[in-house]
């Protein structure tokens, strides 16, 4: 019995490994459709006037970067494309490194964007919901300096930005607590700033009730599929799109596993019964 389980398991592991690897080596190029919630996120940034300042908060660590990093890159790029300025921040310490990596990727295509003028990284702050609440009163109290130790008052793009109300939109890329939910609760429901963002697919179903008439969340990007949809909207062949073939094949395989499992259970039951 024991051996059986282990061997069976290893076979499944190997098959999955191969199924995910093959489409990476030989891409198929299937198309994706854009869903309504992704469109809402896109429209929010698209309809924000030039020169406005948005916040992108990197609230995740490398464990979920495959899903969230493409969203971060696409959103920075979108803001740059629309001539908006972005503040990068993080409620998770690992988010700071994620933000810098995303920025590096986008800056390759937008080399003339300048730190302090078009974007700034304000770094990591501890405290989650309470800290966001403090940002609602004063950003410079929470962020005395940016990650380069430049004082808040000396950063040109932050001139006239004193508290959350002065921000045009906030996007949180979130894989847990604190993250999107805390931003939504404080920045949207208490300070009336539009909040949008992305989350890992695991937590997406739990965020759907917030995308409602009241717009607690303006749209939602749930997982890699949504990231690739956003890339499609931007007209950018990014890293998420390239991975969707593998995703599709692996999903098919999982369905096959479920079917096989049920057939096996049925036959054993019949043999026994």
């Amino acid at each position, binding site marked *: 019995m024991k051996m059986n389980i282990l061997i069976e398991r*290893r076979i499944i*592991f190997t098959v*999955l*490994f191969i199924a*995910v*690897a093959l489409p*990476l*080596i030989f891409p198929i190029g299937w198309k994706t459709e854009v869903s309504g919630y992704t469109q809402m996120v896109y429209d929010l940034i698209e309809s924000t006037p030039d020169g406005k300042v948005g916040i992108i908060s990197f609230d995740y660590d490398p*464990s*979920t*970067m*495959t*899903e969230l990093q493409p969203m971060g890159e696409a959103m920075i790029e979108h803001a740059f494309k629309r001539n908006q300025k972005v503040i990068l921040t993080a409620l998770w*310490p*690992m988010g*700071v490194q994620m933000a810098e990596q995303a920025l590096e990727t986008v800056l390759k295509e937008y080399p003339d964007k300048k730190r302090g003028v078009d974007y700034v990284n304000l*770094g*990591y*702050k*501890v405290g989650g*919901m*309470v800290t966001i*609440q403090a940002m609602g009163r004063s950003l410079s109290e*929470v*962020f*005395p*300096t940016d*990650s380069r*130790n430049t004082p808040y008052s000396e950063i040109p793009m932050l001139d006239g930005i004193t508290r959350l109300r002065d921000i045009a939109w906030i996007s949180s890329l979130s894989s847990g607590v604190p993250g999107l939910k805390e931003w*939504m*609760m*404080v920045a949207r*429901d*208490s300070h009336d700033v539009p909040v949008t963002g992305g989350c*890992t*697919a*695991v937590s*997406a*179903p*739990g965020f759907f*009730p*917030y995308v*409602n*008439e*009241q717009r*607690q969340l303006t749209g939602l990007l*749930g*997982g*890699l*599929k949504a990231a690739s949809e956003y890339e499609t909207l931007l007209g950018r062949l990014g890293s998420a799109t390239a*991975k969707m073939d*593998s*995703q599709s094949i*692996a*999903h098919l395989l*999982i369905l096959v596993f479920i079917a096989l499992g049920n057939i096996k259970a049925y036959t054993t039951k019949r043999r026994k019964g």
Partner: protein
Amino acid sequence: MAIMTTIGIWVAAFFTLCIFSFLYKDNPFYKFAEQVFVGLSAAYWLVYIIYSIMIPNLFAKLSSDFSGNLILLIPAALGVMMLMRIHPKTEWISRYPISIMIGTTAGISMLRYMKSDILQQVTATMINPFASGSVPVIIGNLLLIIGTICGVYFFYFSKKQEGISKWPSKVGIWFLMVSFGATFGYTVMARISLLIGRLEFLLGDWLHIIK
């Protein structure tokens, strides 16, 4: 520089394979990699707490304008009291900062959860289901209202659920099951994505099989 980058990629590949070896069975490589992870993670937190919180929000303010920021000595003292938790004998001192933190969090979460997760959700369910012209949306809106009410009723414990009052709870559980199914589907997607990311590293950055 190029050599160090290549070495870095090999180190990364080594650690990746160490973790994957757990799939065969628990082994020394996995245990080693795991402890390295724990150590690096602790150091990462420490460094960021020092450079992003302690220095800019506390020490820099105190050193640039001590008399103007005298009040910051209070949280600094409370913070030090927090560290007293490390010894069983002085642990009681940490109760003061903890009580302040817990009190603040309790106050803020009470307000924010009441507003966002209760009131806003209630008002978001107060919709006219027939406002839309399209049949699927009308049905959807009805499902939304009925599902929310029955779902909340499922979590209502103070009443015997017999006879007719059994039904809302039953319907509530059906909705919960549909939602769990959706969560399951999304979780499959999430987990596979993570694996794709790692394979992309192994096959691309490390082995250069894909570009």
